[in-house]
């Protein structure tokens, strides 16, 4: 009983159990599930989703939200693809440019939010429209296909089941974990998210921390976009168009409170694993892809309900 209660108190225990159950069911259901190629496919789709989830997780951590992650990602994707195809930029330079655009977009979000004091929801709704508008206006919905072979190869090559593409997200995850747990700006970020007034009274530069979190969020959106371009082998203007629900789903299923201050790199990563498992399971079961959308919504509601149940338990215990 106490063990069960202890396990229930851990955010990731339900997640871990769901993932285990999913693994068992899927490997029994389909012999194709545990093949090297299918594992590679899953790990590959894990990469972009993970970084997208982290981008949202940071703004949630500071008590904000960012609706512009997908739009900013799309803008970065076409910028990186465009300068490589049309202007012949070397890969390194194009990637740096993309990261700068991402961080710049995030910085703009942060500054606008802090300076105007307007709800981040409205600000990022507006900037999302601006980013997507620039993207569509420049590309007229036409993708860039002629990317350097080395760049495209990075998106497809693998070591047995492990895609090369997995390296950057793992580095990002480790860096984020360290940043949030061990560095002063990381602790500031969580403190501001947890209780802005208390943080400000203890001398934490609240506005600067919010701007910083938005900038990092934009930077991660750019990382996700560049990974997506490598994965697809072309810079599609539609990259990021379907990131909104996933960006919130993973951190929330991972237990991030929308009020801020409470995020976990590990739990968010596990939530992404679960989402990828579900997507893969739907493909293997040859079900309508629409089920993924339906199940994502249901999963968020279930996670929210479970969190609520846990809170009630904690109160009565």
């Amino acid at each position: 009983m106490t063990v069960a209660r202890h396990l229930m108190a851990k955010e990731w225990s339900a997640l871990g159990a769901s993932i285990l159950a999913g693994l068992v069911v899927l490997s029994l259901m389909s012999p194709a599930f545990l093949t090297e190629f299918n594992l590679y496919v899953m790990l590959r789709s894990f990469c972009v989703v993970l970084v997208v989830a982290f981008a949202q997780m940071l703004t949630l951590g500071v008590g904000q939200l960012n609706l512009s992650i997908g739009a900013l990602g799309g803008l970065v994707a076409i910028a990186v693809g465009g300068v490589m195809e049309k202007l012949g930029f070397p890969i390194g330079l194009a990637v740096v440019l993309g990261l700068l655009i991402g961080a710049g977009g995030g910085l703009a979000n942060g500054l606008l939010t802090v300076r105007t004091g307007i709800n981040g929801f409205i600000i990022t709704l507006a900037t999302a429209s601006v980013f997507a508008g620039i993207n569509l206006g420049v590309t007229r919905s036409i993708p860039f296909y002629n990317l350097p072979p080395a760049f495209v190869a990075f998106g497809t090559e693998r070591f047995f089941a492990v895609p090369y593409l997995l390296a950057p997200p793992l580095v990002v995850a480790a860096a984020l974990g360290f940043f949030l747990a061990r560095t002063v700006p990381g602790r500031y970020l969580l403190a501001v998210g947890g209780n802005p007034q208390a943080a400000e009274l203890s001398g934490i530069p609240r506005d600067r921390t919010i701007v910083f979190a938005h900038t990092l969020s934009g930077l991660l959106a750019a990382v996700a976009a560049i990974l997506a371009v490598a994965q697809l082998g072309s810079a599609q203007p539609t990259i990021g168009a379907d990131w909104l629900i996933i960006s919130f789903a993973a951190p929330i299923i991972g237990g991030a409170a929308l009020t801020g201050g409470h995020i976990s790199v590990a739990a968010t990563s596990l939530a992404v694993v679960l989402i990828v498992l579900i997507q893969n399971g739907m493909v293997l079961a040859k079900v309508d892809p629409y089920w993924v959308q339906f199940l994502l919504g249901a999963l968020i509601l279930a996670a929210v309900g479970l969190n609520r149940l846990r809170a009630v338990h904690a109160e009565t215990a």
Partner: protein
Amino acid sequence: MTRSVPAGVESFRSWLLEQSNLLSLAAIVGLLWAVFTALAPGFVSSFNLFAISRSVAIDIVIAFSTMVVLATGGMNLAIGSIGVCSVMLVGYLMQAHGLPVPLALAAGLVLGALLGFANGAAIVLSGVNSFIITLASASLFAGGMLILTKATIYNGIPREIASFGRMRWGFVSPLLLIALAIGAWLLVLFRYTALGREILASGANPRAAELSGVPVGRVTVIVHALSGLLAASAGLMVMTWLGAAMPSVGQDWLLPSFLAPVLGGTLLAGGMVSVVGTVLGALLVTTIRSGLLILQVGNFWLQLFLGLVLLVAVMLDRYRGLYAERRGLERSP
């Protein structure tokens, strides 16, 4: 400093200051109409005026759907999904079962209200932010609709629907009158009814409202059901315009649904709505869209413009608020 201004003028001035948001919004709309007409005389052609009246009607109802939830300090990201669910149900009932038009439309409206009710109930029961609940339910509703309909387009619906969408009363579509009638009803609701005051009270300060006997939970559920009903109405208006029930309805509603109420002075924090402001905000959105279309700027840049308008508007609003505050402070001693 003493002022020798008659009381009447002074109160007129404070009324002007209060209405400055609406007046400046109306001025901007007027200015844009002048600019677009000067650049492209086709802007005020009877054909374009009709097109504007039809699309502003839809924008107004979409905006109302968000506005009523904003009044309680919540939000509803699921209005596009609710709208499309209603449209597809109506299309299915008419095409597959030959249900009479009024009955099918009523079923669509009821479905919208029910989905909204489900949102409200989930928010109140879970105690979770309406943002998360409606983000999840938006995905749930749209996904469920696609699973059930397999993204079929119902284009065999009765002709009356499409001919109603094409109907013209002078320059205007009857849809605009429907939208304005809904607006008049909402104006009465928020100004003169106990429910309207309760909605605003729960938005302004939920705790105080609860303590003074307002059933905040019930109000939240009612408001979400109302929002769902309005979203369904907007969806059905789009259906008369398309002459078919399409699964793509509602996909681009998010931005305009927030744009119009926020431009019109409805606070995101809740407790204040402006029905007239929302109508003007929707008119501004439609004007920009139609103007850019007729100037052949291209649909691709539209989104950029709408985003910039929203940014500039909220920033102006912010600085006007600060200015008014400062003036108020100067005067108060």
